[in-house]
């Protein structure tokens, strides 16, 4: 009898890139629903617009680069990048801003560097930073969470969609009336106005630890992240190191002067902390390779995030911290490479 003679190994684990990316999307779904619960349909809309723009950009880039559109478009990696970018955008963002960020993320940060696997910078964060610098005003206009006792009349779904697509609001409504600063933003501006942390936290925007609504979102994101850990899609090193780095810095500040430094809990459960720890910093392409390297990389992001939040001019430092640590990855990899058997005893 004759048989085929493919080269070995003849056995592979069932893992593959599309499956990994799909699992990341599943893990993000509860968080997406939570965002929508607190901030309305705008978040979902951003995700849809970003995903469509990302797929279109990817298709064009693949076409221009003579790569298989069928293979790469179905690996879900652009969708993950698009959703991560969309989650960082305010719920009421005009569609063209979302599209601009996504096109930059996929076209420039990803494909100009060689496409999947070759980009140095996290595409979602690169896209977000471009928007943050280009449209500072739009990027800070968050909605308050839709919780009963906050004095605020949320837009209906239809009105949200209308604003996102056409930029027009219902009569008698202005953007300024609708939008608020995020808790992180509030903390920053009020601290600079010499208010104490306790005074600032008296605002109804703040909850037990972080901002109201935000703490829940962060909790749910962390749950999704823990599911990814359980499914072995990610390893514990980056999330633990990132959270420890941030927590360590925040605790230090809090111990020095609790009146002028937000509590460690506030830092953990505000803004993009959990999203970064479990979903953004763990992007394999742009992270350090070895376990030891991942710890340095994660801790660096945590520390830089705190530094930017506390001393920088931006309310949240996640995106900058990730991009800065992306730059250090080649060096971290070189310094933490594993010992070769029989060579480096």
């Amino acid at each position, binding site marked *: 009898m004759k048989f085929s003679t493919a080269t*070995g190994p*003849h056995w*592979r684990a069932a*893992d*593959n890139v599309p499956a990994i990316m799909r699992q990341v999307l599943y893990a993000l779904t509860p968080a997406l629903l939570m965002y929508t619960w607190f901030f309305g349909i705008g978040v979902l809309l951003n995700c849809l617009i970003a995903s469509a723009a990302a797929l279109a950009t990817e298709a064009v880039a693949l076409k221009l680069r003579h790569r298989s559109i069928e293979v790469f478009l179905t690996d879900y990696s652009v969708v993950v990048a698009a959703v991560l970018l969309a989650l960082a955008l305010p719920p009421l963002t005009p569609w063209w801003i979302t599209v601009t960020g996504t096109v930059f993320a996929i076209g420039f940060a990803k494909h100009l560097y060689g496409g999947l696997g070759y980009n140095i910078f996290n595409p979602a964060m690169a896209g977000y930073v471009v928007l943050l610098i280009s449209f500072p005003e739009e990027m800070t206009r968050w909605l308050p969470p839709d919780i009963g006792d906050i004095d605020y009349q949320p837009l209906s779904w239809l009105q949200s969609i209308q604003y996102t697509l056409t930029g027009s609001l219902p009569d008698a409504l202005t953007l300024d009336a609708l939008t608020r600063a995020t808790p992180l933003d509030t903390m920053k501006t009020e601290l600079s106005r010499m208010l104490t942390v306790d005074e600032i936290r008296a605002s109804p925007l703040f909850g037990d630890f972080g901002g109201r609504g935000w703490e829940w979102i962060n909790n749910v994101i962390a749950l999704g992240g823990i599911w990814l850990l359980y499914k072995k899609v990610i390893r514990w090193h980056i999330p633990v190191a990132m959270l420890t780095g941030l927590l360590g810095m925040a605790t230090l500040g809090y111990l020095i002067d609790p009146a002028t430094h937000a509590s460690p809990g506030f830092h953990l459960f505000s803004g993009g902390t959990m999203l970064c720890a479990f979903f953004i910093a763990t992007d394999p392409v742009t992270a350090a390779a070895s376990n030891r390297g991942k710890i340095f990389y994660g801790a660096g992001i945590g520390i830089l995030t705190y530094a930017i939040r506390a001393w920088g001019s931006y309310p949240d430092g996640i995106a900058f911290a990730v991009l800065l640590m992306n730059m250090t990855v080649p060096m971290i990899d070189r310094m933490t490479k594993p010992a070769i058997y029989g060579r480096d005893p």
Partner: protein
Amino acid sequence: MLHTYNLQPRRPSWGIRAEARKAESTGHAIVIAPPPREVAISLNQSAGRPAVPIVEPGEKVSTGQPVARATAPGSADIHASISGLVVAVEERLVFSAHHSMETAIVIRGDGTDEDFTPHPVANDPMSMTPAEIRQTIAGAGIVGLGGAMFPTAEKLSCGARIHALILNGVECEPYISCDEVLLRYRAARVLRGAQILMRAAGTQRCIVAVETDMPEARVAVHEALETLNDDRIDVSQVTAKYPSGGERQVLELITGRQVPSGGLPQDIGYLCQNVGTAAAVADFFATGRPLISRIVTVTGQGVSRPVNIEARIGTPIAELIAMAGGYRGTPAKLIAGGPMMGIALPDDGIPISKANNCIIAAAPGELMETAAEHQPELPCIRCSECLQACPAGLQPQELLVACRQQDRQALESLGLPDCLECGCCDYVCPSAIPLTARFSLAKIGFRQAQLEERRALHARQRFEAREARLQQQAVQREHELQEQSAGVVSDSQIDAVMARVARDKNADTEKP
């Protein structure tokens, strides 16, 4: 220096946990195959050069008779595995990494299985000197049965001081169970072989390494050890995680020491032998039969009744499949060895060799997930799972880049020569990149380049030596000329020149 050994399992950080799939074939006792009607015995059954045949077609041979002799270091003797008539010494498709044709001695059996006499062994090995034991083992054609087929006698005469003999029964690769059943059913023979090997190697210590997931084998070894009452031998458990049974890996797990890159276990004072090799040594001293058979696991969902068979060397694989109940459905692949490092065979008419520990008839979809097999190769996403899995501490994701760039310096510093081609990186890679195949190809290129470099170096040295010689001659000639022109030519010198001219003239006239 005090040598300590980990007898309790240590969990390695590297490696992969694949399903073992051994239970299918360990359920029954070892089936002893009757001598087949015809065998084709490859001459290439050692780590060295092929043996040279000493029989001719038409010659009658008996079981255990030497039919080919070792030629150089690394090569081993080969014996007739059945009695009968040598019908051909010809090129045959045999089991090898490259599906190459090799010379094989084809013997048609006469059904008597008559032993070759006289038995070379009469003595009790314990009354023989180590050198005599080694010589006897060499005469039995015994090679490492773990798969490398390095001549056992040669390994024993390394000359280094040996702290301990490590008897490797860690059969980490999925499916393979020939060592496990050997330990289960023939533990006493293995330990007897260990004693002989210890004497031959001049060591007073032996560690039998077994896997944590073979409890029956472990119990059997402990029981045999109790009967034997030899306190020099201990049993060590090694975590069942592929490739913890690799020679270097098992050594590291048990002794905590690493074999230097490019070196051998002997360099740090350990001798590794497969448990099957030890049993072969014991068998030879007990029965006088050289290495003419081995235990082969015949398994996979593509056979009806997975089983371990003690088969004669040279038996066609199809006959072993028949003994395992024949094919079940149409298998997708026929693999010699395990699913990780095994070789997919083109044909089941191929005869087994001393290296064949396992035959897997894999049903469609049994090994590769159907989706994964058709998954196109994607770019590396640097997930670094390969780095975590690599037992040699390499970074496959970086090696891949260096392979693409053909950067030899980078390949060297990244440790390409230390890659053991275990396939762990392939197994975990979510992008389905054929890493091991790339590395194996790069290693060949690497060795070729090294060879060429060495050749170029030799050529340059030869060239330079010649240049120097010519230079020296030129200097000498010049020196002579100077001397001649400086000095006065004497009458006797002129006479001598004249005499030579006359002689040359005579010679010229005599020639035609």
